[in-house]
Each structure stands twice: as structure tokens, then as C-alpha cells.
């Protein structure tokens, strides 16, 4: 019985020590940025047959406001024109999200590099978009390599700039 108690205590101590080491070795800034990317992908996700309106639309716009900087510059490349400023991003999203039947954006192969001082970070990734138009045509697929600049604004990580990296030039 005594040995069992001692063994349980050892296991608990090892688990606690492991937890502390895990917590100490985590890069919390990187985790927050990756979480924001997940939030962004979820905000623009539109399942087939759903119209995004009312409270749902407000929630999604609120997420965009949470993860995108007010003076952002978004230039994902042709045929999408450059978008400047958070208000323009939110306006275009609110207008355009119901102009597609379905939309899914996935960020893959994300590599994050923190700048010295940890006030900004650069993320390179492949953004994959799959969608269909309202006419019910075939699924459209687009993938492009992008570079995202993130800035820490009032303690929160926000997207300051998005630009396309040309894989073929």
C-alpha cells in the first residue's frame, strides 16, 4: 500500500514536471498566431446551402476585426485586387460571402518567423481555397503561396500585410 502511494506520487510529480517543462518551452506568440489563422479560416468558411446573415455575420465580422489590423494591406494576387484597411475587408466580406454557394479556405505548410523583439512576425504558407458559385457549377480550386506579416498591437496579434509569393514567375 505504501509502495503504491509512493508510485502514484512519483507519477504525479513526473506529470507535473512534464507539464511545467511543456508550458515553459511553448512559444505562446506562435501559438496565438496559429490560433488566429484557424479563427480566420473558420470565419470565412461557408457551407453549402447556408446564407450567412444576422448574428452569424456579425460574429464573423467581429473575428475579422479581431485578427486583422485597421491599416492592413491585403494583396493576395491576381485576379483579386489589393484591399486596404480593415473596413474595406469587412465590407467586401459582408457583401461577397453570400455570392458563393460554398467556400472553404485552408492554410497549409505554415512557417512562422518571429522578428527580433517579438513585436512582429512573418508567416509563409500555402492558402488553399475551394468554392462553388451560386449557379452550382463545378468546384473551383485555387492555391497560392502567401506571406503574411503579423504585428502585435495592444498585446494582440493582427495581420498587417498579406502578399503573394509567386511560385512561377
Amino acid at each position, binding site marked *: 500500500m505504501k509502495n503504491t502511494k509512493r508510485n502514484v506520487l512519483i507519477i504525479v510529480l513526473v506529470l507535473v514536471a512534464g507539464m511545467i517543462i511543456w508550458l515553459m518551452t511553448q512559444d505562446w506568440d506562435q501559438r496565438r498566431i496559429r490560433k488566429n489563422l484557424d479563427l480566420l479560416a473558420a470565419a470565412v468558411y461557408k457551407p453549402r446551402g447556408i446564407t450567412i446573415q444576422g448574428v452569424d455575420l456579425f460574429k464573423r465580422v467581429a473575428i475579422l476585426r479581431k485578427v486583422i489590423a485597421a491599416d492592413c494591406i491585403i494583396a493576395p494576387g491576381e485576379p483579386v485586387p489589393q484591399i486596404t484597411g480593415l473596413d474595406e475587408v469587412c465590407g467586401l466580406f459582408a457583401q461577397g460571402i453570400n455570392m458563393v454557394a460554398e467556400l472553404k479556405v485552408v492554410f*497549409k*505548410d*505554415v*512557417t512562422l518567423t518571429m522578428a527580433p523583439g517579438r513585436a512582429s512576425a512573418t508567416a*509563409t*504558407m*500555402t492558402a*488553399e481555397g475551394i468554392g462553388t458559385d451560386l449557379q452550382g457549377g463545378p468546384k473551383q*480550386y485555387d*492555391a*497560392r*503561396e*502567401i506571406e503574411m506579416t503579423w504585428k502585435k498591437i495592444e498585446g494582440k496579434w493582427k495581420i498587417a500585410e498579406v502578399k503573394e*509569393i*509567386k*511560385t*512561377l*514567375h
Partner: protein
Amino acid sequence: MPWYLRLLVGKSPRRTLVRAIIIAAIAFIAFRYLFIPVHLRGASMEPSYANGSVNFVNTLRFRFGPPRRGDVVAIKMAGTRVMLFKRIVGLPNERIGFRNGILLVNGKEFQEPYVVHREQWNMPEVVTGENEYFVVGDNRGTAIEEHALGRVDKRRIVGGPLF
């Protein structure tokens, strides 16, 4: 031992476990680094590679020799989870262009038997760099503006399709 357990773990569970671990390790290395499974999306390489088909990227393909004209290559984007499948039509230090849908290599017309759908593409000649290839899809049935083609750094070429 009941028959179903014996069927599952064999006569010697320990040996079966070791075998399973070895097979899992081999499969992990093979499908993560050597033969990367890919699901093709888009019609850019039709009819050679159909939209929606499944293939593997053989990363050993160009380990023992550089890619040649006509080879289909997998080009990594930010990583290897999303890659472009394209055909090499231009080698390093060559002039590549299109005139009325015909490929021009160093000013001379080049016949491409793998091209079935062909629009009247026109593109002024571009010169590939020392470490660059010119790649294009087989499906030339769309406008050139809608097709992803161009020069690619050789470091982006991951391998070629397995079949």
C-alpha cells in the same frame, strides 16, 4: 488464446508488435519522404493527369540526374502539402515563348505530342536563369492568362509523379 485474438496478434504477440512497429516506421518514411501521396486538383495537366486523380510524388526521381524537357515535375509551394504538377518545356539558359499555340525553344518550334487541347497562345520569349526551368501544364485549352506557367527555381522541384 481465442482464435480471433490469435488472428489479430499471431502466435507471439511480442513478435507481432515488433513487426507492426517496423512496418509502421517504413510506411511513415516511405509516404512522408519518398513517395508523397497527392490528390490532383484542377484540369491544368489534362489529359495526362485527370482532375481528382490520386498519385504519388517520387522524390528520388531527380536525385541521380537533372530533369529533362518533357518531364512532369511536382513543384512545392510553401511546403510539400500543396504542390503544382507541371511539365518542363524549358531548360536552364533557354529562350521560351509561344506563337499561335506552338512552343518556341530558342526561337525554334517544338512539337509536344502530349498536348491535346490547344488555344492560340502567344507569349513573348522569356529567358530562364542558370537554375531555372520553364514549366507549363498540358491543358492549353484555356486562355493563357488563366493558366499557371512560368519559370521555376530548381530547388522547388520536389520530384516527379510515380505513374
